[in-house]
């Protein structure tokens, strides 16, 4: 569980378009102070008396100390809620709760880390990259998306990373293909010790498989549909194998979003595995 999340009514400081995405910077000192890489925030959309009851969860792209602390969110317009967010102007207010979730665990000693981001999932990687570099780690980026305008943060990754490999499915930027196609080469060249990944479930599953081949640990931040973000609604569950070998349906918001990749049963996401704790007719039932 996150240290102590707070609810903040923050003022929008800047809005900008980043290729296919929108970015909002919001003044939220209480959240910025407590933020660790991997944390996420939820926002209420639609204003007062909204008909949209669920909060939208977003990874935090950047935290800055200006105005007591700001957070920047990056999102693509996918529905009425994100469309409302995209229409926000400077000086509008936004109801945020955060920081939520468990952050990325950081290595104790300097090592080589490959950071993999698919689409706007890569937004979460830059704060992580900063934290890793402060610990003397080498950071290599692999960023991908279906097309060039949906690759997020390529410039920043180039400045920050030892190497940066870009992939697009249509070949409009970097290599043609997916991040998982180039990942084995990057891991081998960098002699990576650990992989961190953010993005859609399918990508995380591929990244985990690659890391498993190399026998190195992989930390994934999962994206699952949430209603509350604080762990009460039980809708964002994923099957995860525990230390005791038992699969449990864990909440992506409160028990995650960061899990060890090899512990997440990606093949069974969207189902209740028959051997999960409490599965209907299962051995623990």
């Amino acid at each position, binding site marked *: 569980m996150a240290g102590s*999340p707070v609810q903040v009514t923050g003022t929008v400081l800047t809005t900008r378009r980043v290729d296919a995405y929108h970015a909002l910077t919001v003044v939220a000192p209480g959240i910025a102070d407590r933020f660790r890489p991997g944390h996420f925030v939820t926002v209420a959309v639609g204003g007062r008396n909204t008909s949209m009851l669920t909060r939208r969860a977003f990874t935090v792209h950047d935290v800055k100390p200006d105005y007591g602390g700001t957070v920047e969110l990056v999102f693509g317009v996918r529905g009425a809620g994100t469309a409302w967010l995209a229409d926000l102007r400077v000086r509008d207010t936004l109801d945020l*709760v955060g920081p939520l979730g468990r952050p990325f665990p950081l290595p104790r000693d300097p090592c080589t880390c490959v950071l993999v981001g698919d689409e706007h999932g890569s937004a979460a990687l830059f704060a992580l990259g900063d934290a890793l570099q402060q610990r003397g780690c080498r950071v290599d980026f692999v960023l991908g998306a279906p097309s060039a305008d949906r690759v997020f943060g390529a410039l920043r990754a180039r400045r920050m990373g030892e190497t940066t490999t870009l992939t697009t499915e249509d070949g409009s930027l970097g290599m043609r293909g997916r991040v998982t196609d180039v990942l084995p080469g990057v891991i081998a060249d960098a002699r990576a010790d650990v992989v961190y990944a953010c993005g859609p479930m399918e990508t995380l599953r591929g990244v985990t498989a690659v890391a498993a081949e190399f026998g190195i640990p992989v930390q994934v931040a999962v994206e699952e549909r949430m209603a509350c973000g*604080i762990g009460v*609604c*039980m809708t964002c569950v994923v099957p995860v194998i525990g230390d005791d070998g038992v699969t449990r349906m864990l909440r992506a918001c409160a028990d995650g979003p960061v899990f060890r990749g090899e512990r997440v049963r990606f093949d069974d996401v969207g189902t*209740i595995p028959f051997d999960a704790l*409490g599965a209907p007719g299962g051995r623990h039932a």
Partner: protein
Amino acid sequence: MMADLRTYLAHVELPNPILTASGCGGTGRELAQFSDVHRLGAFVTRSITMAPRAGRPTPRMAETPSGLLNAVGLQGPGVEAFLERELPWLAERGARTVVSIGGGTVTEYTALARRLAEVSGVTAVEVNLSCPNVEDRGRVFAREGSAAAEVVASVRAATPYDVPVIAKLSPDVADIVAVARACVDGGADALAMINTPVGMSIDVDTMRPALAAGTGGLSGPAVRPLAVRCVWQVHAALPGVPIVGMGGVTTGRDALELVLAGACAVAVGTALFHDPYACPRVLRELEELLQARGFDRLADAVGLAHRPAGAQPRTRTDLEESSL
């Protein structure tokens, strides 16, 4: 002067009428990050089952206009883990805990009630009657007065005399008053309504049901008129029975609406997903509204909308005397 917000579930006094709705407050730990659980009138747990339950596959949730469809499927650790890890934590923090129980058979409900009778820290037992009855082709107990009454009677018999039993009713019935009356005849000390009506949503992009389970329970402000109607009808028929009203309460005004319809306590559910501070906020707003209308006591407002048109608004329905 502050209004007197104390309320009674049968003989149990609660310091204020705002509860969490079952399944909407997690284990209590999640909400405690935002506000103290002992400030609630009572904390209502998610429905506890005998064995651990993994629940339904995802997606479990779909947003609808002013509503939320969910099909979580009572995911939980089972009663033993609940008694070991969750109930003591709530007791330690001074929360009054209403334990919701769910089962597939009358025997299972009874066994749960017996197990709860062995421990301390249970303020009341809420019987979630919207569980499929495995012995009756999966029809929910709440659909029929006799099935509901059978569960309530057996839970009442297994529960200590000083722990009230609350029957939670579903609005998906032809005659909610008949089911309510059957539950009270079966021994229910109080009634809670409404559980979520069953709804469905289809994703027109994938052209498949939005929920993995197909159908789900609809909650949120979309169902509030339904809740007000149910509370109104049951309070009119059974004016002496305490009612916990719930269904789409997001503000103090919504809570007051249910109180005026006849609820002596109000549970906040889906609003917690939107605003983790919803309970203390609704309580504050309700208190302000009562004061603005000149009420000294919450009890004076309970069921007040039933007074005949033109009657003085200050008829005194004295719950404190009538309930003991």
